[in-house]
């Protein structure tokens, strides 16, 4: 039986809500035609909606074309055109979809690598039907985590959610409803506290760092000059950017991410230069600026990829340096606001994963890198070590230490402080190649859409949003229009980077209750990740790529951190909404 969910081609429909996990949209990538055929058949038998692909690049193309078109990706590890792990990273960064790896090779090291790169699971071939039947759990789990993250931005204990989750019945949809309702209530409650004004002003809109916006940002940064990295501050950047609705906080948050990204690239570059096998401890401890040391490319061969794909786990990226105060210009302290921080007590495995994806590139570079709670060589954070302890999040899984954000008490901390300091420490590496930064052409400025959506959705409940940590991508999403969480989340997710968990979540909640997805569809469509990597070589930030190369390592080019997709929440109506910061940061990593 070939079940085809009546989803529209554009992938926005959500028939899934009716009978999740039936209709789960799966993208299978495998260069082996035999396996592709078999998997397609098996997945169809599970009532999933299957799309097959024989090449990794093609798969990425498909994913980018339909941001919200898939719920989960299953990919083989060995593929001729691109390493499966790389694909995994890309997907995690850009679309934040759960990815399952497959291989006929079950060696521990391979499996480990898969996990390090962020795979939700590693299946051994031959794959059995029963294994495929349960893959929906990864989609669902992700959703729950997102909700949880949203919820816990106030250090709210996300356990509630998970508890609710455990009560989940077979029908994920049902569960979501209850959960959402619960979360929603909580959110509303929190919102009351956060509410600083009228309804409209408390709406927290996530700033979507569109390509254009980011270009302006980078331009501004470059203008200030890489050398004066310590002077690169959000205020200055904001002034230069001349974007009326943007707040300093938005910029600060974005800046932080940018730094992290650069740092990560630098680090990768360094690592690459010294070959794999370099232990973290070998990594030179650079100064904050240098510590960005992100390898320019997670995988040197990034450059091979035509689009310089970079991998960023959006989640990881949000290292918000919450306690930045302590670290002047200490970029390292990347606090990952992301989910991790949000869920106070939950050592979110997801985070782990995302973290992994964050540094998965590193993983690939350095197979010997050890997972360390706080990597010593954390190049950019020396002091933070102490801070890390504070964090309950095991963020420190960063292997490479770089770019890993030691979550320092992220939640609730306004990153504002941090950005200030971080900004100053932003290395010159900030220059991103236009190539990297721009996401695919497809990126649309979400803002306009958001606002419209937003406007339409305003309702008393809106306030709930305010307290949403903007997760993952900056999305000025108005939850209202979201479909039930199950679908909304899944659909949101794929948006490169953009999904604001919260917003999605909110909307999901609402939807669950209202079960309307009409408004969501278009919205989703519009939610584009701000930063899509690589592909957008055609993107032009307005800064000649040449400029960048002067500053950054070629490797950088390949990696435009998704984190740049700033999930800063910025209220469309009220651009200046400082309290949103923490939320924003948190939301950031929602990818």
């Amino acid at each position, binding site marked *: 039986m070939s079940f085809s969910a009546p989803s529209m081609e554009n992938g926005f429909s959500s028939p899934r809500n009716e009978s999740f996990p039936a209709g789960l949209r799966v993208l299978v990538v495998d260069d082996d035609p035999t*396996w592709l*055929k078999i998997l397609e058949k098996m997945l169809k038998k599970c009532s999933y909606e299957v799309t097959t692909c024989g090449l990794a690049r093609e798969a990425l193309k498909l994913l980018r074309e339909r941001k919200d078109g898939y719920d989960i990706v299953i990919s083989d590890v*060995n593929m001729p055109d691109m390493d499966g792990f790389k694909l995994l990273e890309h997907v995690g960064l850009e679309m934040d979809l759960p990815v399952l790896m497959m291989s006929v090779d079950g060696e521990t090291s391979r499996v480990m690598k898969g996990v390090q790169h962020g795979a939700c699971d590693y299946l051994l071939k031959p794959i059995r039907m029963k294994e495929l039947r349960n893959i929906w759990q990864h989609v669902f789990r992700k959703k729950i985590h997102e909700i949880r993250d949203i919820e816990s931005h106030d250090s709210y204990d996300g356990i509630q959610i998970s508890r609710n989750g455990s009560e989940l019945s077979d029908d994920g949809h049902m569960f979501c409803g209850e959960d959402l309702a619960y979360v929603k209530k909580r959110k509303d409650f929190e919102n009351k506290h956060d509410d600083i004004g009228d309804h409209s002003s408390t709406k927290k809109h996530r700033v979507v760092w569109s390509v254009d916006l980011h270009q302006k940002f980078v331009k501004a940064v470059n203008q200030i000059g890489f050398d004066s990295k310590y002077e690169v501050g959000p205020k200055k950047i904001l002034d230069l950017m001349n974007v009326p609705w943007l707040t300093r906080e938005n910029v600060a948050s974005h800046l932080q991410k940018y730094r992290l990204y650069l740092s990560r690239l630098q680090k990768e570059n360094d690592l690459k230069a010294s070959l794999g096998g370099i232990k973290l401890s070998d990594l030179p401890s650079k100064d904050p600026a240098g510590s960005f040391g992100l390898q320019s490319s997670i995988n040197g061969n990034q450059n091979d990829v035509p689009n310089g794909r970079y991998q960023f786990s959006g989640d990881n990226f949000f290292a918000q340096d919450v306690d930045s105060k302590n670290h002047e210009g200490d970029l390292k302290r990347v606090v990952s606001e992301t989910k991790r921080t949000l869920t106070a007590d939950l050592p979110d495995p997801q985070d782990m994963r995302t973290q992994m994806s964050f540094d998965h590139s590193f993983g690939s570079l350095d197979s010997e890198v050890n997972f360390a709670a706080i990597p010593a060589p954390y190049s950019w954070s020396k002091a933070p070590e102490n801070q890390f302890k504070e964090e309950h999040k095991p963020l420190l899984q960063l292997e490479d230490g770089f770019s890993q954000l030691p979550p320092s008490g992220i939640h609730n901390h306004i990153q504002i402080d941090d950005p200030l300091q971080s900004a100053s420490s932003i290395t010159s590496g900030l220059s991103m190649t236009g190539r990297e930064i721009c996401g695919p052409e497809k990126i649309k400025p979400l803002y306009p859409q958001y606002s419209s959506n937003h406007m339409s959705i305003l309702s008393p409940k809106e306030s709930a949003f305010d307290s949403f940590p903007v997760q993952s991508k900056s999305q000025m999403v108005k939850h209202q229009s979201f479909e039930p969480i199950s679908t909304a989340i899944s659909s949101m997710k794929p948006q490169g980077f953009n999904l604001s968990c919260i917003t999605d979540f909110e909307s999901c909640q609402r939807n669950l209750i209202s079960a309307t997805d009409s408004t969501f569809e278009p919205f989703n469509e519009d939610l584009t990740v701000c930063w899509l990597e690589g592909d957008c070589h055609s993107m032009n930030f307005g800064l000649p790529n040449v400029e960048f190369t002067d500053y950054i390592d070629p490797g950088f080019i390949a990696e435009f951190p998704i984190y740049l997709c700033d999930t800063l929440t910025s209220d469309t109506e009220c651009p200046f909404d400082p309290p949103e910061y923490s939320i924003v940061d948190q939301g950031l990593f929602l990818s």
Partner: protein
Amino acid sequence: MEVGQMQSRLADYTKSLFMEGILDAQFLQLQQLQDESNPDFVVEVVSLFFDDSEKLLNDIARALDQQCVDFKKIDAHVHQLKGSSSSVGAQRVKNACVAFRNFCEEQNAEESRRCLQQVKQEYYLVKNKLETLFTLEQQIVAAGGSVPMIELSF
């Protein structure tokens, strides 16, 4: 031969393939996946396997014939072959690939060639067996019968 006889002959034949380890449970999976919407599913998949394998075997042979043997490439091919043989349940082929890869790692050209022969042998064996099996199935269908689902406990 009447249908009933053909069917039991087919059943015995199939079982023997499993007993001899030529096929494994994955083949059964394939058979179970076949349904009315895809009545030739197994044949199609196996055909894909044949095409892919023959290509791979040729590539490997060519690589081994080079002056400077690229073991990495050969290993990649063998890995692929291992993967596709596992997809149809060609157990012996898969096992031969595993052994082959070990020699690739050792960069042992001599042993690698021997392994290639081994893999080829297993491949042609399973190909032959499967073709026979399909022929038997066709005969049954042509005679108006239906192909029984093999029940084996694995």
